[in-house]
Structures are given as C-alpha cells and as structure tokens.
C-alpha cells in the first residue's frame, strides 16, 4: 500500500496531472498526455459555456437528466457512447502512429512517439472504453429507444431503474475520463490480469481506476439486463406473441438474459481483485493459496458472453434493415430466432478458448475449441438468411445498407480468423499476437460498430423528426469500411510474422511497411469519425428539408413506424392490438392504417426524478474517493447512495398523468398531417419529397 499522504486529500496532490510530467520531462509523450488533458478541460469548459450561453441548463435537467423515458435515456446513452467513441478512435490512431515510429533495437533505449508506460495506458483505456463505454452504451441505448416501441409498450418495465443504470454507466465513464487529467490509468490491458495488476506489481491508482469504473458501470449493466428481460416478458402489447416479435426484440431478449448471467462474473472478479489490492487478500496470488488462473477463469465467464452481448443487437439491427431496405419480408424468421438463441446459449460454453495456452490438458482444449467453432454455424446461417432476405428484393443502397454490406464482407473474414483461433494447435502460435487483435477488431467493428451506426441512421428520424443526410451517411460508412481494411488487415500479417500485441517497440524492420499502412488506416478512421459528427451537424442544419413528420420514412413494417416522428413520450395513443408479425406492414397492406382510435384515455407515465442523477454523482464520488484513498469522501459517497435509495423507497411517488384530451389533440393533429402529406415512392426516398408517409401501393416488406 502506498503511504497515506493526507487525511483530507488522500493520495491526491498537485503532481498527479500530466502537466507535472510535461514540465519535468518535455517530450512527444508528455506533450500528447498534457494535450489530451487539455482537450478534456477545454471540452468541459466549452460544454459549460455553451449550456450557460444558450440557457440550456434548465432544459438539460428538466427534460433530459431527470427523465425516466426510455427513449430519452436511450438517446443519452448514445450521446455518452459517441463522446467516448471520439476518445477511443483518437487513442487508436495514436497507438498506430506510435507503432509506426517504434522500430528499435534490443540494445537501444525505448523509442517512438510515446513512452512505453503511456502506450500501455493507451491500449488499456482504449480497450476499456471501446468495450464498456462505447459498444455497451450504444447497444443499450439503441435497445432502450427501440424496444418499447417495437413491443407496443409505453416504456420499460422499470423506468426509474433504467435511469439508475444510465447513471451508473455514466459514473464509470466519468472515472475513465477523469483519469486523463488526474493520475494515471492502469497498464494491464482491458482484461487487467493479475498478478501484474496486483498491488505488488501495480502500485497506485491506475488499476483502481479500471476496477471502480468497471464495478460501478457493471452494476448498471446488470440492472439493465433485468429491465430488458422483464420488459420483454411483461410489457408486450396484446397479441404480440413471442413469435410475432421483431428480430431486434429477440436479440434484445438474448442480450438481456446474457447480461443477467454474465455481468455478475465481472463484478465478482473485480470485487475479488479490489479485495486483493485494498485489503491484502490473496485471491489471485499464489501465496496463501490463491491462484491467478482464477481471475482469467472468472473474467472470461463474463468476457466471452460479452462478445455476443455486443454483437447480437447488431444482428437484430441487420435483420430489420435488410428486410426494410429490400422491401421484402425477412427470410427465415424462425431460423434467425433459433440461431440467436443458440448463440446466446453456446456463448456461455466457450470461455476457456481465451486461455488455451495457459497449460490445461489437450482434452479440455479440444472440448472448448469445438464448442467455439459450433457458434460459427448459427452465425453463418444468419448471414445467409439476410442474403436470402435481399435476394429477389428491391434494394435501396442507403447508408445502413452500406454498413450491412461492409459487415457481410468483413465479418466473414473475421469469422474465418475466429475459426482459425478456435483451433488450439494454431492458437498456440497466434494467441497474444496482433493476429488476435486484428480478429477481434474484425468482428467487433463490422459487427458492433457498423450495426449500431446503421441502427442510429435507421431510427434517427424516429427520435428527432428528421432524416440524416444519406450522402454523408454513406461517406461515413465507406470511410469506416476503408479505414478498417487498411488498419487491421496489416495486423493479421504482422501477427503471423510474430509481432505480439501491446508491443511498445519491435526490432524487425520488415514490419515497417505494414506499420505505415496500418497508420494510414488509422488516419482514415479519424476521417470516418469526423465525417460521422459532420453528418449529424449537416443534417441538423437541413432539418427542415429532411423532416419526416409522417413518421414512416423507410416504409417499415414494425410498430414503431406507425407513430409520429419525433415520437411522443407515450409512444402510442392507445396500446396497439397486434394481429400479425410485422403488424404495421400488415396494417398498411390492409389499407387505411392511420385510422384514429375510437376513444382516448388518460396515460400514466413515470414522473421525472433526480434519483439516477444523485446516485450517479454519489457513485462517482465513491469511486473517485476510493481510488485516491480519501476515506471520508468514500464514506460520504456510500452514505449518499444508501440514503437516497432509502429515501426514495420510503416515498409514495405519483405517476405523471397525460390527460386524454391532450393525447387526443396531439394524435388528431398527427393524423391530419399524415393525410395532408404526399406519399413518397421508394425511388424518391432519399429526396426531400420523403416526409415520412410511404406510398401504400408499394409492398411494405
């Protein structure tokens, strides 16, 4: 344990910022470190200034942060993810730039753009951010926004718990963010294997930043899983049988169940490592009966299902868009449901493939290797099903379809390298090499990132009332696909040539051409990121021309497309009665889909509350204080958490009631508007003629 420096400030002092490093030792590494901290500070100041200048503080709290509306919570999740994505992509680029300058000799001192310790922090934060604070919030956000609408529900089963989950995730993300400015992050990679991350070998705050960020956000994700599962089991509209649910709901159900089973393993492994570090336990050191293998074992019980938690929602998105943009029914609905569920179940039986090379017997490796390859079957079936969906369709090559096609081509290559890695005899060679790095980026970027961006593009008009620019959307997609190819294909080759992952330096000059290609790919990824933000900006500027008040800009077939865009808080004026799979498509084919309900009733919605915000602030305070050993503040944080739960639990909270008259007024206005708008044929979907009312003479898919 480090020396306690102060009762009030714990281990904090003025020398923990990167500015001290810069002053003591000015070089490219400390300049980059201090630059990153400065961007964070300026970003925070800029945000505060903007909110004050535009007088947005009130709306921010009243409309957004205190909301228990799943749609708003979903949007906030996605905003959080996009902010973290910006950091993650920039970090990835810096790592590629560093490695392109890192050629050295065995005799030379360290070299390259950044110092080895800095590089190690980068790959650790990059992995942590991308998995836990980009991919997870993106998919949880998208599910939050879409799921209740597709189920024909008004909200999640537990709206306030939903807000708490968001708060916990944001608190974890804030801890990772603040580590840029105050102190250092751990250097053990996103998996943080002990004993390297034990107190003997990693003194100080770095590993604790990771542990508290993961522990806190992990609680949020577990609660989210329960919320999704209960919502799907209990809140489906009448007639919405399981086999009538859109595929996205099915994959959300898989994800929910997996979150419930997988996240606790992560929480447990983090808690055990925390006890090792804070309280002198020996769970993960050999001395006194512990064993470091236990960490790998428990961590990957979470870690492997996590991969499919990330990817299944994207599979749901791809199911929706392949059907909608081909103007066709989804091929093989039952197959896709079975395949999704199989993936969810089998994914819990393969975690040992992450440590084929840790010395277990070959028969164990055989069992887990085969189990791993079996997952390839349902995954392959899904891809063929989507191809069959597009076959004999009328495909509009919109931005989501560009992502889908990029996914098809790249994901099968990622699948191939996965099958290669599933063979223990080959894994003995390529495990821990950049081949592995290329593999998991090859499944996660096309699988998760493309899927989520396609989903955002697809549902954006439903959230904000206007479409995103197709031109810029497609440009972004092309840049992400090209950037991926240039960045990660070289890493496959480098891995086969013997470059280990996480290498701050290497000695083989033959690696250099490929390193330059990968760094160029990193530039393209930066361009893609810029283009993504520009897409939002330029679309917002053209929001009048791109507005789709009719609410059904793609001629969709699931329930969410029956409501206005932006969709009102209560989703539906009356809870729909579901008569078919793809109910909205069936209704449109039957004619007169926008018929007003015969009567309106009062709608009860969850009242706004600051419960989640308070818990998030207290959890951040607790984590930060524990990291810096500020014990009094830790106690204060813990008491705030317990106290506010107690306080909320003791009160009777009245729902917020939307009067029937208001619902009727808004709903009638929407229906009049739809009647007044000119329907658009699919061929004109990208033009300004698309106001969200499709031409019903065309098949609705």
């Amino acid at each position, binding site marked *: 344990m480090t020396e306690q420096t102060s009762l009030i400030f714990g281990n904090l002092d003025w020398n923990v910022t990167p500015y001290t490093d810069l002053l003591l030792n000015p070089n490219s590494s400390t300049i980059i470190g201090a630059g990153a901290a400065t961007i964070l500070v300026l970003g925070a100041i800029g945000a505060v200034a903007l909110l004050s200048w535009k007088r947005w503080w009130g709306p921010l709290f009243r409309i957004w942060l205190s909301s228990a509306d799943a749609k708003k919570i979903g949007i906030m999740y996605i905003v959080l993810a996009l902010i973290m994505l910006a950091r993650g992509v920039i970090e990835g680029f810096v790592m590629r730039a560093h490695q392109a300058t890192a050629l050295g000799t*065995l005799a030379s001192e360290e070299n390259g753009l950044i110092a*080895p310790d800095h590089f*190690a922090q980068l790959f650790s934060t990059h992995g942590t951010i991308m998995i836990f604070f980009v991919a997870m919030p993106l998919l949880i956000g998208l599910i939050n926004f879409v799921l209740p609408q597709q189920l024909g529900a008004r909200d999640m089963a537990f709206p306030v718990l939903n807000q708490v989950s968001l708060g916990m995730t944001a608190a974890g993300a804030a801890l990772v963010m603040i580590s840029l400015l105050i102190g250092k992050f751990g250097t053990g990679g996103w998996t943080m294997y002990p004993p*390297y991350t034990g107190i*003997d070998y990693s003194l100080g705050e770095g590993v604790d930043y990771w542990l508290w960020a993961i522990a806190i956000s992990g609680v949020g994700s577990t609660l989210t899983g329960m919320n999704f599962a209960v919502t799907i089991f209990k809140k489906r509209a009448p007639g919405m049988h399981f086999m009538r649910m859109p595929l996205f709901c099915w994959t959300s159900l898989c994800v929910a169940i997996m979150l419930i089973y997988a996240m606790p393993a992560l929480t447990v492994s983090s808690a055990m490592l925390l006890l090792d570090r804070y309280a*002198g336990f020996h769970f993960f050191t*050999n*001395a*006194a009966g512990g064993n470091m293998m236990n960490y790998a074992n428990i961590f990957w019980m979470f870690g492997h299902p996590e991969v499919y938690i990330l990817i299944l929602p994207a599979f749901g998105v791809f199911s929706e868009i392949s059907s909608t943009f081909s103007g*066709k*029914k*989804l*091929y*093989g609905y039952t*197959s896709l449901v079975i395949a999704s569920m199989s993936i969810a179940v089998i994914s819990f039986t393969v975690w040992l493939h992450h440590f084929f*090379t*840790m*010395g277990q*017997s*070959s028969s164990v490796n055989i069992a887990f*290797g*085969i189990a791993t*390859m079996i997952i*390839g*079957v349902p995954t392959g079936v899904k891809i*063929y099903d989507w*191809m*069959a969906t*597009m*076959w004999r369709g009328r*495909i509009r*090559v919109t931005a989501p379809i560009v992502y889908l096609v990029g996914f*098809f081509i790249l994901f*099968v*290559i990622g699948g*191939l390298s996965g099958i290669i890695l*599933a*063979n223990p*005899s*080959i*894994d*003995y*060679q390529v*495990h*821990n*090499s950049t081949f592995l790095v290329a593999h998991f980026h090859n499944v996660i970027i096309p699988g998760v990132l493309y899927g989520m961006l396609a989903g955002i593009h697809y549902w954006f008009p439903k959230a904000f009332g206007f479409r995103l620019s197709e031109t810029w959307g497609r440009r972004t997609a092309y840049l992400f696909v090209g950037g991926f190819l240039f960045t990660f*294909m070289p890493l496959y*080759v480098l891995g*086969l040539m*013997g470059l*280990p*992952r996480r*290498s*701050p330096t290497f*000695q*083989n000059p033959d690696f250099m*051409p*490929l390193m330059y290609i990968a760094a160029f790919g990193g530039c393209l990824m930066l361009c893609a990121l810029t283009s993504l933000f520009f897409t939002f900006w330029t679309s917002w500027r053209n929001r009048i021309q791109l507005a789709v008040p009719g609410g059904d800009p793609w001629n969709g077939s699931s329930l969410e497309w029956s409501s206005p865009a932006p969709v009102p808080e209560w989703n539906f004026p009356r809870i729909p009665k579901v008569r078919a799979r793809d109910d909205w498509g069936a209704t449109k084919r039957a004619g007169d889909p926008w018929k007003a309900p015969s009567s309106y009733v009062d709608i009860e919605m969850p009242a706004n509350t600051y419960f989640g915000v308070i818990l998030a602030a207290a959890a951040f305070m607790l984590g930060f204080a524990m990291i810096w050993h500020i014990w009094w503040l830790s106690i204060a944080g813990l008491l705030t958490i317990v106290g506010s739960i107690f306080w909320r639990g003791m009160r009777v909270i009245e729902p917020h009631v939307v009067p029937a008259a208001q619902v009727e007024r808004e709903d009638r206005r929407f229906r009049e508007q739809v009647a007044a708008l000119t329907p658009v044929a699919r*061929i004109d979907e990208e033009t300004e003629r698309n106001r969200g009312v499709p031409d019903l003479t065309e*098949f609705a898919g």
Partner: protein
Amino acid sequence: MVALLFLPAAAMAAAPTQSFLQPMSATAQEQSAHLMRVIAVTMIVILPVLIGVPLILWRYRLRGAKAKYTPEWDYSGKLEWVLWGVPVLVIIVLAAWLWSFTSRLDPYEPVGQEPLQVQAIGLDWKWVFIYPEEGIATVDELALPVGRPVELTLTTDTVMQSMLIAPLTGQIYAMPGMTTKLNFAATRTGTAEGENTQFNGDSFGRQKFMVKALQPGQYAAWLSAVRDAPVLDDATYRVLRRRSVLAGARTDLGLSKQAIPIYFSAPDRSLFDRIVAKYQLSGDSSAVPALGGTGLPPKGGVSSR
C-alpha cells in the same frame, strides 16, 4: 488468406526466423499446414458470401433492376437444409481435425526419447535458461542440438508471461509458483527468435531471446564454452531478478553493456524448484530474501547512467 499473400519476401529471407510460417520443427510445420487447411475448408462457407453479396446487390438494386421481385417469400424448406447443413458439415470436418491436431500437438507430450531438459524462468524483462544436466545456465540464449527432443519447463519469478518460439513451437504461459511445459525438436539448423507475448511492463517489447538450433558437434562446442563462465549463485540471481533488459542486467553484473547473452556455469540444481516454491509460502512479498522475494524487484540496469 488475404494476409498471407502480402507476406513480404524479405521476411522470408531475414534472420532470425520469427514466424511459424518458416518452420524449424515438425510442430511448427504441422501448425502452419493446419492453418492452410482450415482456411481452405472454411472457404466453402465464406466464398458464397464474398461472391453472392455483390451479385445480389447489383441484380436486385431498386434503380434499374429488372429482376424478379418476390416480397412475400420468406421461407424455403430446401434452402433451410442447405443453410444449416453445409456449415454443420464443414464444422464436423473442422472439429475432427481440431481433435486430432490438438492431441497430436499437445505441448505436454514428449516428442521423443530422452529429451534434453531445460528450465526457463521468466523475469522482467529477460529469460533465464537452466540446463540442469549440463550444469550451465544462460540469459536470453537457448541453444539446442538439431534432432534431439527438448523438454522445456517454465515458470516465472515475476508476473504472468507467455513464451513463444514461433518457428519451433507454440506459446505457453509461465506463472509464478507453477510450471508449464513445451516439448519440441528442431529439424534443421538456424536461428529463431523467442519472445514473451504477455504484456508485463515497460520493456515488454524487448524481452526477446535467441534460439540456436545447432549441429550436435557445434552444440558440444557451445556447451564447453559456456561451462567456462562464472557461477550462477543466489547473489547473482538476485541481480538478474532486478527489472532490466538484457543489456541492463549485463551492466549490473559488471559486463559490457550490449544486448548479448550472458553465460553461467554450475547453477544450483535446485534453483528452479526453489523459485517455484517461494510463491507457495506465505502472503508476504519479502519471503525468501535469498532469492529476492516475490514482490516487485528494484529497477535494475541503471548503474551505467
């Protein structure tokens, strides 16, 4: 597959060999052959996607397409059989291979009679090799006679590491307080590079060592040269255990500061076992001071600065 086409020709010629695609042993030979086979068979399910997607996209595009349009078509029993059946068959073939190769290439299985015993200790950031039967030890150099099986027993005296000698054998983790094994035999002479692949701190990228596969005569000469070196005792080991790369360890030992291997004679035959055993004592990181404890060692290789 795409990757392999781009392997620079220079990489093939350059020494030392660093990839299992330039095998120096039967093990690496089989591993690279297995890689190619897996790629070939998996193509059965991948090529239809790579070829079919662009075709579908072109033929059924909304603008200008004259192809057939069947919006209600959403199921075909025959197609289902193909979609599920072909991947299942491919996986059955792959699984059978996986089974046979994984058992055959199990690194714990000896590859021949009377293997040469070598013990490897991972340190931050170098490897100590002890030849208990030959009475020698080296830092960052592993010499082997071609044709003779080798049984390498590994541990570390620091955090978890993973040793990979790609042209000869796959990697296996080394962990404090535990031992793991690699069995292999060189089939041709040459120099391979070995490395640690599990990140363990700042100088991780320089934790490399040379593996020399020698003719038996050359190997005997190498052995007798190493036997002339100073003795590896506990005090010397404590210096080695400091956190330093090879050149740093050499300065700490009063040798020239170059990245060339260090040789020792007559190591204590129980050294390896005592290093494994010290992690099985108490939870105190200062246990077994004679061997430098089990906690974070001091930073070495600084005396020359």
